[in-house]
């Protein structure tokens, strides 16, 4: 929508708002500075960098997954597989990153707006992903066996306690709930 500037300053001049009156320029830059600082602080406090990692602890930054983490940590998969191994597709890196970003944004926005249900269920989009990942590791058990489709009978219809017998945001007792990962903000706590 922006036409190419004619003056030699070009894009740089446009971005530096040189075309604005000075006092507005000053205010805009001041506010941009505030926004940037606030953004950086929020990112640090929310442990935002951890979301780029593969560490399961990243999933409990926003508390909703606290129980899922506690049950996973002590369950059969706690020693061999992390959240992303099962809940994110491993077909190719792009699908992986896109799925993780979309799921993460959805979780974060739902929780920020306080719309989370008390009992979490796999979404329709997540079911084939998890089933695929079950087979990624356990597939050799089914050589020569026809498996029903994921909508018909997913693995967890029978193997239902991967995350423990009870599922709710509150299922695990207090002492088993993991501590919040540190965000380097000890002085605030």
């Amino acid at each position, binding site marked *: 929508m922006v036409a190419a500037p004619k003056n030699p300053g070009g894009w740089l001049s446009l971005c530096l708002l040189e075309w604005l009156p000075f006092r507005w320029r000053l205010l805009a830059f001041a506010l941009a500075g505030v926004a940037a600082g606030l953004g950086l602080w929020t990112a640090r406090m929310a442990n935002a960098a951890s979301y780029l990692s593969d560490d399961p602890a990243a999933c409990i930054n926003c508390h909703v997954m606290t129980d899922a983490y506690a049950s996973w940590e002590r369950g059969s998969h706690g020693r061999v597989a992390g959240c992303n191994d099962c809940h994110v597709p491993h077909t190719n890196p792009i699908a992986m990153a896109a799925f993780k970003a979309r799921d993460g944004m959805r979780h974060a926005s739902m929780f920020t707006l306080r719309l989370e249900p*008390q009992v979490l269920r796999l979404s329709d989009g997540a079911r084939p992903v998890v089933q695929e990942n079950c087979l990624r590791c356990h597939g050799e058990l089914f050589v020569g066996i026809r498996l029903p489709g994921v909508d018909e009978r997913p693995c967890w219809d029978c193997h239902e306690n991967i995350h423990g017998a*009870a599922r709710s945001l*509150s299922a695990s007792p207090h002492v088993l709930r993991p501590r919040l990962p540190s965000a380097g903000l000890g002085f605030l706590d």
Partner: protein
Amino acid sequence: MTETASPKRRRWAGPLIALLLALVVLLVGLLASSILERRWEHQRPALVLRPLAEWEPDNAKWGENYPHEYESYLRTRDDTTTTLYGGGVPRDYLEDDPRQVILFAGYPFSEEYKQARGHHHAVADVTGTKRTASPATVGTCMTCKSTDVPRLMAKLGVSEFYRTPFHELKKEIRHPIGCQDCHDPASMNLRITRPALREALQAQGKDLDQASHREMRALVCAQCHVEYYFKDKTYLTFPWQQGTAVEQMLATYEGNGHVDFVHPVSRTPILKAQHPDYELWATGIHAYRGVTCADCHMPYRTEGALKFTNHHVQSPLLDIANACGVCHRWSEEELKSRVETIQAKVAALKLKAEDALVAAHFDAGAAAQAGAAEADLDEARRLIRQAQFRWDFISANNGMGFHSPQESMRVLADAVDLAQQARLRCARLLAGKGISSPPRHPDVSTREKAWTVAQAFVRGEPPDLLGVGAAP
């Protein structure tokens, strides 16, 4: 905002950019404060703002320290919720089911019998019902209704509390069922404050102080949601000496000869069942799996990063996701329809038992009018007494049998069987008097008609049951 923009348009650009950036700052700030708040919730220690006195009856004072629990407790005020057979609405059982006017004829339950509202209404409801209007009502009726009770029991002594007239005690009782009925104010541990449960368990040789936390999550409810009677007219006692199954409690009652009222139609010494929710639950699959009252009626909730027990005690059908979905992973609609299917079957058999019982009362009345011997009638009355207690054991239970569906069907089937056995005996007694036609049962199809019939028997001016007429 383009290079070619006129000076007039450029004048808007500055404020617009400033406004947009200010909006960004606002939104990032809101997000930051939300994240901070959650962090704080996750890490904060339990804050006791003000220590509580040993017998503090005021729920609001506890609420200062435990706001989430208190706020959810306050929602027991809601008396508009309904489920298929329950909820918080004071539904009128007698209006819905006039048979009960006959079954409780001559007893206050035939005059007013409504579904109980939430805990918050306990004091208002016990003092408002016609069933406690009599000046002779004993203080025992107040035992389960108020957090003022433990304080008064400590002051007066337990027996003296029970003996104090209800309407005298009323002045001292303000606060409805609440925090300190179940909690120790210093540690918040669950604790038993009502002596009847302690005594009942002692009589069974069980030590309450050895109960695990899980057991306590049912036992605190068993302080009140049980079968009980007033020993020596005032002393609150559970008939658990031989056990908590319906037959064991009946055996205890047969042993001590307890009678709640004599039925004016059949002259049967009737036992009124209270609300043996705990005893029925104990026979069911949920109890077998260690799922307690609190797990379904007060499930845990997570709000933000805070986990707490929802103190809005209510039908689990009003909170299926939390109450059932935690273990049963099917959809809410499916779970609800499953529960209602089970309840509908119990409800159908319950009505069959009522029909058989109403008929049995009239048959026994007819046999008496025909001049049958008292000793012969007593055998029929014994069967009716057994049948009616079994029916009432399920009928008075909350949850339309869902606390233990198979046990409910078994007990109701026994009730139908015993009532029909009683009818057979009455038919033989009538035959012995040369009467082969069925007795004439009065029309009790509405609450008003049933009330008129019941009152006629109470006054001693019963209708003629022996005339020729169609039996139901």
